[in-house]
């Protein structure tokens, strides 16, 4: 390089002018160096419920990539090589844990040795508050279905983000506090909304067992065709059991998750029909994944709102108005011209 400058007969001043940006660029490319502070940190989340939270809390301090898009079943999802690349380039990895991402165990364990990897649901929900199902899983992983419980995930994510981007700590904590208030407000609203469902119809029937926390938090009984994971196929006995439950309870509607094949629920509806009980499909519920980004259900708050609206209206309740803490959210999402 010296040679080059000598040949060009360039002065020391010009050399500095040329060299400085090159040097800055060089340093900027080194990860974690102080010159790269202004770059948002790269965060990778497995499911949308975590990814959305991370986006809300990180704001401009972070760029969040969510591996599993709308309609993707996290119990069955297997990492692609593109995912592994994203995980490799991430500075913080957030996942649910509690065995939700059944097929990603090895991949996540591998990365946890090299970079900050946080099992959000595991960290946020103490054992005493978890639901332990009768068989199979140690704990039911669908904790986000209880908004109050999921609000506890916000400080967990906030502290992980702050550790990865310390210069942003103040901003992160402020946003986390604001968002946590919104989540808590949503929880209160859902309680009020579900209370309007008549007592005889407080039965939530879904394709798989993702709503245990919702049922516990908001006072609904549950029945599901498949268990907590969708890895096994629905069995004849499962369909019959749920059909009988419908016939006994005369519940007006059943629900389908967006990650499940609609034929299973249709088979239940037909079977219930044969037992003399007419039941209709109350609508799609977002259980294991958010909806499309452009729709209302594309965020966590939106997902809980849409789920509650679907359930309450189908089971004969009436939706109350949204509290003022959620006004800001309502405007953000343009609730007045919502798309389902």
């Amino acid at each position: 390089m010296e040679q080059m400058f000598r040949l060009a007969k360039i002065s020391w001043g010009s050399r500095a002018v040329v060299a400085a940006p090159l040097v800055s660029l060089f340093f900027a490319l080194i990860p974690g160096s102080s010159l790269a502070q202004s770059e948002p940190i790269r965060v990778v989340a497995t499911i949308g419920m975590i990814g959305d939270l991370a986006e809300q809390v990180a704001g401009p301090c972070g760029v969040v990539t969510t591996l599993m898009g709308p309609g993707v079943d996290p119990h069955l999802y297997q990492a692609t090589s593109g995912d592994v690349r994203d995980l490799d380039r991430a500075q913080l990895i957030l996942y649910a844990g509690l065995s939700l991402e059944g097929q990603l165990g090895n991949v996540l364990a591998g990365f946890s040795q090299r970079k900050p990897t946080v099992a959000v649901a595991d960290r946020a929900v103490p054992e005493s508050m978890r639901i332990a199902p009768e068989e199979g899983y140690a704990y039911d992983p669908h904790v986000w279905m209880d908004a109050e419980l999921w609000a506890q995930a916000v400080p967990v994510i906030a502290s992980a983000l702050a550790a990865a981007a310390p210069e942003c700590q103040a901003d992160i904590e402020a946003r986390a506090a604001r968002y946590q208030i919104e989540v808590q407000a949503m929880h209160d609203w859902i309680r009020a909304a579900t209370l309007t469902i008549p007592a005889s119809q407080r039965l939530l029937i879904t394709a798989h067992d993702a709503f245990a926390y919702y049922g516990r938090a908001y006072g609904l009984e549950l029945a599901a065709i498949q268990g907590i994971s969708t890895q096994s196929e629905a069995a004849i006995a499962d369909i019959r059991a749920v059909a009988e439950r419908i016939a006994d309870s005369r519940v007006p509607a059943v629900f389908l998750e967006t990650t499940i094949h609609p034929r299973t629920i249709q088979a239940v509806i037909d079977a219930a029909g044969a037992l003399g009980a007419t039941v209709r499909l109350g609508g799609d519920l977002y259980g294991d994944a958010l909806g499309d980004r452009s729709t209302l259900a594309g965020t966590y708050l939106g997902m809980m709102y849409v789920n509650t609206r679907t359930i309450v209206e189908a089971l004969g309740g009436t939706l109350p108005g949204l509290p003022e803490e959620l006004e800001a959210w309502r405007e953000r999402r343009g609730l007045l011209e919502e798309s389902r």
Partner: protein
Amino acid sequence: MLALLTDYTVQTVILGALLLGLTSGALGSFAVLRQQSLLGDALSHAALPGIALGFLVAGSRSLPALLAGALITAVAAALTITLLLRRSRLKSDAAIGISLSLYFAVGVVLLSYVQGSAGAGQAGLESFLFGQAAAMLRSDLVVMSVLALASLALLLALWKEFEVTSFDPVFAASIGLPVVLLDAVMTAMIALAVVLGLQMVGVVLMSAMIVAPAVAARQWTDRLDSMTILAALLAALSGVVGALISATARGLSTGPLIVLALTVITLVSLAFAPKRGWIASSLARRRARRNLHEHQVLDILQGLALRHDDAAYLSEEGMVDSALGVRARTTLQQLERQGLVERDSHRPEEGPHWRLTAEGREAQGNALHSGGKA
């Protein structure tokens, strides 16, 4: 368990299993006899990309679109196999293996693409890997029965043509039958049977429904028509039994249970069928060996008697063992029971000695002149 037969869902699944069994059993008989057992496997694995494509094209989870896609790629796989056989030196098993892996790999890639692409609603396609029999609807039964009846009717109409082209395609061509066309029709029918069964037992296990009923049926009959009917009935029976068993407890998958029932039936057929069964043929072999040994021992005793020029010569058992090559005790006892030899132990310290009885000498005299065997 039989009370389950009145249940709506159980009835739906059983009817579906019956239709599946009848078609796959009947058409599978021809596949197996034409030495195309692997073809069923290739066709079912090749259906996977078709299911994904059907979803991508139709944009919904409508069953006709998925099954149409499955049929198209299955037939494409069959054509690929034919092309490989014609244009290269590959043998049938290699051509089938290549086609199977190729299409299945494409299918898995397409599935993961569908899985990763935006748009809620693509879920549930993985259920085609092992089937989702319990989710069968009455409307599906209508489609299935039309297709099943159509293929069985076609099989019946073209029965003798399929029979002769499967047995001796060269001769069939010589009497003017369009062998290539008939082969193509048969392959398409097998593909259809495979596609019909995908919902119930899935891509991975479907080949069992094609191959096992034919193998089991072959054990019991030597006629093509009986074999085909029996294969269809055995497959249908496994369908019903598997469906019933899977309905008894929560969480039991129907498809694999159907295949398990079928496997049990096949193993029983392989073991217990008269004439062709393993037990029957080992018994026959043992009987033959026993007869042979008996003849050999009689010859040995006679030979020893001749050598020593004494019709009542007592042969020490060890000598008989040595000449026979194996322990002769059991054979000698059998012959003793038949009254052809007798034992003598007047010198007990020297071990048992044996000689021919009068009947034994007579039997040898009437039989071959073996003489001097010793």
